[in-house]
């Protein structure tokens, strides 16, 4: 939703746009284009539901079929993951790509889930809140798998350190990552900070979270069992994140509340910390049948995905949703991206216990609907039906594109200009000067100004964090069993050759994990690219995926999940392709891990490899 444009307010229907009203008024002009849909996409929606969509349905489809939620440009290339995953690689994989986050078996009955996501555009607009809500979002993904989040990492990319706008963006992003992560109590065990002019107008804020649980505690996002209750819990719903989509807002509600819709989401880490503990209590009590976090696309996403993954339909009374802003219209409630909310499916006999637990944590929880034995998602507003759709068509059967791709013409020239042509330092003096330039450069210098703003000790399980190349945390306090995680990417290599560049990123993260003493087990990735409508970018993207998938097959570690972020560009100029790779490894006893750097005076130094 971050790239929605502001559009002219459309005339607002004087009556509630119910399903019946939509059926009776097939010819009403609808703002599908303003909502980012293409003509044929709009036509497909009409075909699926056999009439024009209501404004609420249109809102749901438009947000769920956005690039961000539907992966419509990238999905087609994801078959490379499957094709390159062998049965052997699947052995330790408990939950694969497609769920909120992948889960791997690390032994002794423990499972670990991890995933990296981007929050690039919001962090450029409002660095503190953008970064903070990015961290908050990925943590909820991990929570929704049934896990306790145990660590975060933050791969960051900024423009030139000395550019005035970097002075706005960098401190804000770092304070936001720290502000959220520190307050929620998750150790920050690593990340990256890279400066390159290509990120000046489009910094990258990626956030990774790791969570752990017992194998039997894995939870999935699905709504089954007719009669089971659908519960929305956590923060109240406000107008967050729909600021740009003023086409949805009524301009007639000037009285009685804020009518402006904020484009900026504000994070409340305290609310999320309470939500984590509350969810863990709920899992322990065994009262949750299905669970989903509310992230981008809010209720549209949670209701349609839960219903789509389940075996029945779902009925939701939208007017029961607790609101922070009473002036919100139903379609806005469906699109709101208010943070710190979760949705659970709970059987009626567990309802009282569920509510007692949320009460204990002072978390507001509201039954807003139930699972039905039908096959539609039906949403009502004060008794009138405003949404009646097959949930799969919203959540999973959105459009996919096989976009044209072409190797960029500039690549030959770029690759031809090799480093061999550069002048070499001749004298000791020159070598000295060059060395100083190198180690004083922003990309190589000490990063403690940033990393000291992050709590790396909370939870008491951190065995390695900055300045080491991997973060290492204990999962099992009895045995010391734990995991090592590293994220890496050199986008300059990826620009020269996205296939090899992606593999180099994978290899670096893999090595960083292996050298701590951990056995690499799984991969997550955050693919930050320019516009998919540019064939050159699309080619970079496909090459990078191919590189990662084939590299993973070679190394024998599966990709368990990740995130695609397109449209990272300023005007026509895309960022360097930046496929950030996270590798996770397992260790029997993390107190035996080896750190980087010299640890004793008389140690010998060996060079291994070629």
């Amino acid at each position, binding site marked *: 939703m971050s790239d929605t444009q502001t559009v002219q307010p459309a005339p607002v229907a004087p009556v509630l746009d119910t399903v019946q009203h939509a059926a009776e008024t097939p010819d009403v002009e609808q703002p599908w284009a303003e909502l980012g849909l293409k003509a044929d996409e709009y036509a497909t929606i009409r075909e699926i539901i056999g009439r024009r969509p209501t404004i609420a349905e249109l809102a749901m489809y438009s947000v769920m079929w956005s690039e961000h939620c539907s992966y419509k440009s990238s999905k087609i290339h994801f078959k490379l993951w499957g094709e390159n995953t062998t049965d052997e690689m699947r052995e330790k994989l408990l939950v694969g790509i497609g769920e909120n986050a992948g889960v791997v078996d690390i032994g002794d009955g423990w499972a670990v889930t991890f995933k990296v996501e981007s929050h690039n555009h919001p962090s450029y*607009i409002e660095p503190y809140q953008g970064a903070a809500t990015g961290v908050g979002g990925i943590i909820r993904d991990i929570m929704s798998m049934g896990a306790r989040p145990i660590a975060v990492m933050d791969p960051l990319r900024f423009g030139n350190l000395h550019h005035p706008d970097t002075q706005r963006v960098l401190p804000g992003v770092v304070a936001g990552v720290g502000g959220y992560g520190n307050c929620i109590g998750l150790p920050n065990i690593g990340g990256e900070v890279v400066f390159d002019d290509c990120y000046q107008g489009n910094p990258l804020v990626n956030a990774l979270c790791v969570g752990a649980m017992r194998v039997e505690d894995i939870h999935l996002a699905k709504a089954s069992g007719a009669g089971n209750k659908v519960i929305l819990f956590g923060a109240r719903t406000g107008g*967050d994140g729909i600021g740009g989509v003023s086409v949805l807002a009524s301009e007639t509600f000037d009285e009685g509340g*804020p009518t402006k819709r*904020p484009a900026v989401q*504000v994070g*409340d880490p305290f609310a999320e910390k309470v939500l984590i503990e509350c969810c863990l209590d709920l899992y322990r009590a065994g009262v949750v049948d299905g669970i989903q976090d509310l992230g981008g696309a809010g209720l549209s996403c949670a209701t349609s995905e839960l219903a789509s993954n389940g075996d029945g339909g779902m009925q939701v009374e939208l007017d029961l949703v607790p609101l*922070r802003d009473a002036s919100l219209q139903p379609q806005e409630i469906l699109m709101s991206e208010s943070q710190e909310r979760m949705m659970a499916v709970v059987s009626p006999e567990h309802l009282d216990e569920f509510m007692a637990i949320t009460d204990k944590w002072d978390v507001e929880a509201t039954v807003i609907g139930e699972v039905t034995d039908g096959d539609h998602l039906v949403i009502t507003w004060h008794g009138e039906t405003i949404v009646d759709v097959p949930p799969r068509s919203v959540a999973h059967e959105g459009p996919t594109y096989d976009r044209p791709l072409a190797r960029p013409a500039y690549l030959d020239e770029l690759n031809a200009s090799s480093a061999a042509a550069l002048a070499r330092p001749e004298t000791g003096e020159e070598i000295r000067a060059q060395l100083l330039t190198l180690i004083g450069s922003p990309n190589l210098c000490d990063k403690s100004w940033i990393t000291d703003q992050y709590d790396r000790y909370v939870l008491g399980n951190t065995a390695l964090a900055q300045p080491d190349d991997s973060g290492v945390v204990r999962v099992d306090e009895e045995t010391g069993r734990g995991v090592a995680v590293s994220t890496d990417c050199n986008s300059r290599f990826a620009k020269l050759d996205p296939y090899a560049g992606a593999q180099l990123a994978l290899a670096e993260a893999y090595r960083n994990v292996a050298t701590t003493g951990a056995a690499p087990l799984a991969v997550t990735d955050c693919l930050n690219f320019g516009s998919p409508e540019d064939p050159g970018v699309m080619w970079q993207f496909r090459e990078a995926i191919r590189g990662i998938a084939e590299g993973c097959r070679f190394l024998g570690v599966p990709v368990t999940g990740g995130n695609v972020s397109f449209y990272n560009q300023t005007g026509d100029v895309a960022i360097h392709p930046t496929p950030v790779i996270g590798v996770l490894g397992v260790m029997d006893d993390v107190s035996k891990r080896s750190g980087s750097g010299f640890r004793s005076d008389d140690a010998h130094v060996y060079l291994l490899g070629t």
Partner: protein
Amino acid sequence: MGSIVVDVMLKPEILDPQGQAVGGALPRLGFNGFTDVRQGKRFVLSVDGDVTDEHLAAAREAAEKLLSNPVIEDVVSVHVLEDGSSDQGGSEGGSEGGSEGGSEGGEAEGDEQ
């Protein structure tokens, strides 16, 4: 020595977790009459001598440029603090509540961004 007060609040549509936390605590302390709490910032800028129109103009500009973040905040007021002390007077009493504001009724800041 004169002082100028700049008041900054989060825009009404923006979530205010701080205000919410305070709002949640009040009833536990037996204060039940408040329906909502929002928390903002108050800056007191001191100047040598009396506050001039130039000072006020500068304060207004600084309020927009530095003291507030127009993406999420509004400058709700820029006005002279009448007591004249550098900040809330000798702290004993802090009785400027009555004298502040109003005095320079015209200078409210209305043009965010």
